[in-house]
């Protein structure tokens, strides 16, 4: 059906906008990478959310001899280095990492978008200043920045979210600034300026809706980094503190006995790997879909 014929049949703006997103979603899911990514992502999110309710044992309870092999004592994947149920701890350990990763990403991408759009719109000195500050932040590898703050102020959940989020912000700001710079040049922004539209409304009303595609891609990408970073912090012991069940913590706890009882390490490692791969495939598929749609394919 041609564009004009499609337009005839359409009604309210809300419905139209939904259709635009539906087109994008279809173009995304037409690709195998995106379908696989979505399946993996949904599976891992499901485990993280529903897992705690399905855990056969209390994740903190000692239920068997340490490092019991899989299948013994009715434990599906055996017990960990101090005799807790690996399966139950695995099911229970996804929620914290996923929650923290999403929170940190939302914070970082939100902040980065605000800075990126402001820099792109105001340009000139303010743009320079914001971007130089971003450069300073980007000079530190994200994990170093996180370690620095967490060792200084202590391993607190809110602090980890904050520092991981802030470490994402300059990277997102760069991407969004780049995307928005092309939008700022367009005449509809000039038209808004000519009628005296407030700056805040130009940034959020004119620019933001036109960078939603890169924004979503950026969110997906930063989410994978967040998962890796937070798992890393938990692994080093600067994140969530034992005895809480968490995938990162589990890897750390059980790594010494990995030769005797591999499941305690293998399950959380697989989970983290799958979560990042799934997120990444989905994001990649979405990014390809937006490019394809722009090309008119």
């Amino acid at each position, binding site marked *: 059906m041609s564009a*004009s014929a499609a337009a005839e049949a359409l009604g309210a703006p809300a419905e139209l906008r939904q259709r635009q997103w539906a087109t994008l979603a279809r173009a995304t899911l037409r690709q195998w990478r995106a379908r696989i990514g979505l399946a993996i992502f949904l599976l891992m999110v499901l485990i993280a959310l529903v897992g705690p309710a399905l855990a056969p044992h209390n994740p903190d309870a000692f239920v068997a001899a340490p490092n019991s092999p899989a299948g013994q004592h009715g434990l599906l994947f055996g017990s960990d280095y101090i005799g807790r149920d690996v399966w139950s701890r695995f099911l229970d350990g996804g929620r914290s990492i996923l929650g923290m990763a999403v929170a940190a990403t939302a914070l970082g991408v939100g902040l980065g978008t605000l800075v990126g759009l402001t820099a792109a719109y105001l340009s000139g000195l303010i743009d320079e200043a914001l971007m130089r500050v971003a450069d300073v932040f980007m000079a530190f590898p994200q994990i170093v920045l996180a370690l620095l703050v967490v060792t200084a102020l202590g391993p607190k959940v809110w602090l980890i979210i904050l520092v991981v989020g802030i470490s994402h912000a300059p990277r997102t700001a760069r991407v969004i600034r780049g995307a928005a710079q092309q939008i700022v040049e*367009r005449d509809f922004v000039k038209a808004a300026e*000519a009628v005296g539209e407030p700056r805040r409304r130009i940034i959020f009303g*004119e620019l933001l809706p*036109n960078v939603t595609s890169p924004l979503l891609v950026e969110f997906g990408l930063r989410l994978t980094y967040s998962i890796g970073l937070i798992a890393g912090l938990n692994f080093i012991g600067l994140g969530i503190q034992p005895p809480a069940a968490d995938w990162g913590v589990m890897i750390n706890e059980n790594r010494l006995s990995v030769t005797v009882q591999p499941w305690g390490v293998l399950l959380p490692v697989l989970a983290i790997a799958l979560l990042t791969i799934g997120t990444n495939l989905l994001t990649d598929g979405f990014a390809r879909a937006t490019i394809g749609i722009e090309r008119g394919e």
Partner: protein
Amino acid sequence: MAVAEHGEAVVVRGLRIDLTATGDDIVDAIDMEVRAGEVLGLVGESGSGKTTVGMALLGYCRPGGRVTGGEVLIDGRPLAAMAAGELRRLRGGTVSYIPQDPGTALNPALRIGRQLSEMLEAHAAQMHDEQRAARVREALAEVALPADEEFLRRYPHQLSGGQQQRVAIAMAFACRPHVIVCDEPTTGLDVTTQARVLQTIRELCVSHRVAAVYVSHDLAVIAELADRVAVMYAGRIVERGPRDEIFSHPRHPYTRRLLRAVPDLHGARAVIGIPGRAPLPGNRPPGCFFAPRCDLALERCRSEFPAPTALGDGHVVLCHRAGELAEGEDQPGRPPTAGPPGEVVVEVRRVDARHGSRQVLHDVALTVARNECVALVGESGSGKTTLARCIAGLHHNYTGEVVLAGQTLAHSARARSAQARRQIQYVFQNPYASLNPRRTVGQTIARQLRLFGARGSRQQIGARVAECLERVALSAAAANRFPDQLSGGERQRVAIARALAAEPMLLVCDEVTSALDVSVQAAIVELLGQLREQTGLSMLFITHNLALIRTIADRVVVMTDGRIVEEGPTVQVFTAPRAQYTQNLLANTPTVEAAIGR
């Protein structure tokens, strides 16, 4: 020179190209012949399939398309039978191409000399280096460019747009092709440059006996250049024949309407647009494709696709009424009349403006009175858009004064009062960029209404939006569309509706029709004329197209290099121009009337 037995370098018979995805045809039943030394003008509006046909002569098909019928013969040999390697040698060798935008067609990393000799290396490998160098110099001389070392060592960005286009033409002619396809090569050029480029193409075609297909939407250019003309509409050639026949005795209603949409430089004939839009592939009506927009259509036109009617001398028309409509006189349009100008609305006093360190306006003064339409004419780079932006508060770097109804305005729109911002409204050149693609038309106009003080419920604002759309002859249903669901003309109407929603005193129209097809351009000009008649709006109409403003402007201001060189009542400027620059501009503007001596 190897040509087919009848001397036709290009023969196209029954060519059909389909969209691979749906099987709908993009173009069908394309028949044409071009003889050596002859120029065929292929005229059509955007989406008519003219570029698709032009590319088919090079053996190309756009992605998503496929040749499914008919044949293209170059020098009597069918392209379809050629192997890939043979086709590659053909392109640029036997058939060459002049693109629309030389800026993107020339490799920015290669010097001019290198670009040209590379072309020769690919297609005339037997040449020695000295022969090749001689040919490069010859090719540049043919297009009136210097061929010295200094010039050959330049990069494309060091040339002007006109020089770039002439380099592209030199490249196209360097291998001595038999056929040349020109895809609107003068669209981006100023009239003076355009005139020179057209003359170059014309001379080269004659001197080298090249068969040229000149694809364009500009009827005036075609009238100046072509020997024969084919008019395309919705993927069909609806009328073809010798140039004088087509322009003096057009038979197809579409050709006639198209000619009436072309602005006339000499008379005061009003331009009249064609309502509606051309049907897209897969969406075409069962009968004649033009029937839904044709005011002469009969019952038969709506049900039955017309067969070609030959009228002798190669004049072929696809219309059921070709015979009867022989000499039917079309009514000349009445130019809109507005009341006499009132008091001065906007005055520009001694404005000097700069872009960075470069001064683009020198001591410019201008007034626009109530109820007056002032046309600001100039070529690209003359500073006309900068002046308009100074008035609208979008260009801040100027000295001098912009006075609105007695009050000097601040330089930046943001620093002006809401009242001042309301009273000067700006309509941008490109309607594809001036509307936020993420907002519906209704949201865009509603925002403008609220910004300038409209209060009320959603329903009340919605009713106001509908009124605004009706004023520009759009249906209220358009409010629910996003800009990408509208055609270029419809978008420009929305942009005008947005400007009028503020109820301004002055409407600044910055090249508002230059991104549009001629029939749409005519409709927009018609609309602006009617709006003036109804509302007594003042207008500053900025354009590079002199012919366009003949019927709508009261006064003309001509600018070049940031200075005003002539100013006066429209009739006076057109009939007795004083400035040399205006005289050149008038002489170089191609018109249908001048070309066919009518």
